[in-house]
């Protein structure tokens, strides 16, 4: 049920676009209107989401320290895992966002006879996660080819690096293989690891299926069932320059690809995928461990009732005097 529902949802999306384009001739809807709406929803939705988080303050400075604090000068501080300044925090966040530092720490519980609880290294989640995210980013950047006539030089470099194996024609992009493998692994892990399967929601499978379908249709289009690429570029250039055109005869697989990625973009701000933005706002990671050096102010702090020393002395004055503890009022 948890896997079937999202699977059918993705299949329904494909049926929808095929029916719309193939039989109802709604190329303009799927080729122009929906992509525009999707990008607008993505941008507006993500900004809305971030602003909503930002509207709640960070009342306390609560970094999770994963290394030695700054203390005595002769004790070596771990500047990345327990940063005390902005530079260190930037370093820590960069490691987290670019290399998934925390996931790299992952270990696996192994309960043996005895009992002896052992913890083995478990880097597969880190590796597949990193491979997936980086491939996705590189593929996204590569697609810039469809949105500009004169490509900036770095994009050419990325393209040629990605295809440096020079296998086949059109040349095989390494990231295409990697993303399919990584997403497949993440899916298999989700259904075969009993604990992960238990915590998984339909909202975990849906993006996996969707991304698999997006990547799959892209691969199909590039290497197998060819589409009219000149027509595709006319359409994409039309979109990017706000002079939309819908050339005839592009091929249905392109519309499937475009529609699914549109759905992914539109779905993004309303799903767990917002972790892309949220990771930057996580107070346990993005704050310096300089708590005792620099006072942090809580904007909603309010006065509280306390039991004052005066009240305390009133309660215990005689007892204090009897054992010689000094008091304020004799």
């Amino acid at each position, binding site marked *: 049920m948890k896997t079937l529902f999202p699977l059918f949802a993705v299949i329904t999306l494909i049926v929808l676009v095929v029916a719309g384009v193939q039989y109802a001739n709604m190329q303009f809807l799927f080729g122009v209107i929906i992509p525009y709406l999707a*990008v607008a929803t*993505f*941008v507006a939705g*993500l*900004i809305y989401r*971030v*602003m909503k988080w*930002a509207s709640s*303050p*960070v*009342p306390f*400075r609560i970094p999770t320290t994963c290394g030695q604090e700054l203390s005595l000068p002769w004790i070596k501080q771990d500047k990345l895992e327990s940063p005390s300044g902005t530079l260190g925090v930037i370093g820590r966040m960069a490691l987290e966002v670019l290399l998934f530092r925390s996931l790299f720490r992952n270990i696996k519980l192994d309960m043996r006879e005895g009992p002896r609880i052992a913890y083995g290294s478990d880097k597969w989640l880190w590796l597949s996660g990193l491979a997936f995210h980086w491939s996705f980013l590189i593929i996204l950047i590569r697609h*810039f*080819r469809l*949105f*500009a*006539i*004169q*490509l*900036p030089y770095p994009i*050419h470099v990325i393209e040629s690096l990605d295809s440096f194996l020079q296998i*086949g*024609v*059109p040349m095989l992009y390494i990231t295409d293989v990697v993303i399919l493998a990584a997403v497949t692994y993440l899916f298999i892990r989700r259904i075969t690891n009993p604990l992960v399967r238990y915590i998984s929601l339909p909202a975990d499978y849906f993006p996996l299926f969707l991304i698999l379908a997006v990547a799959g249709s892209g691969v199909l289009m590039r290497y197998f069932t*060819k589409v009219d*690429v*000149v027509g595709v*570029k*006319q359409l994409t*250039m*039309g979109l*990017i*320059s*706000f*002079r939309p*055109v819908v*050339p005839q005869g592009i091929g249905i697989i392109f519309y499937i690809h475009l529609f699914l990625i549109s759905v992914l973009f539109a779905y993004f701000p309303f799903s767990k995928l917002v972790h892309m*933005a949220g990771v*930057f*706002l996580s107070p346990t990671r993005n704050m310096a461990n300089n708590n005792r050096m620099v006072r*942090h*102010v*809580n*904007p909603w702090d309010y006065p509280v009732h306390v039991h004052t020393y005066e009240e305390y002395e009133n309660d215990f004055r005689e007892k204090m005097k009897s054992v010689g503890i000094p008091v304020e009022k004799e």
Partner: protein
Amino acid sequence: MYDSGKIITGLLVFVAIVSFPFVYSRGTNIVKPEPKIDTPVIQQMAVKQCVQPRAFMRAEHMQLLNDWRDSVVRDGNRVYVGFGGKQYNMSLQNTCMHCHSNKKEFCDSCHNFMSVKPYCWDCHIAPKENKS
């Protein structure tokens, strides 16, 4: 503590990244490329026919050239049997470019539009007309 400054900066960077393609390609004149086939050689042909039908060539020419290269370089076989059983010499420079002597107006028109850079001319010598 809200860190509004940092968050707004972050959002501006995000918007800048998303809008970059729009800004980069603003006002680009989109002209559908029309590869020209009006070279003298082609004009003299009685039947204007490439080694394979037009639709196939359009979608698969890169694959075909790749096959030719492999066939020539690895197997030493230069004979290609094309559309209608006609035989051709497998050669980019001597066969393809013989008819399509206008690389600029033929090859490049699409390739430039698509922002692809085939590596054909890394090894082969481009026709003279192309020297700028």
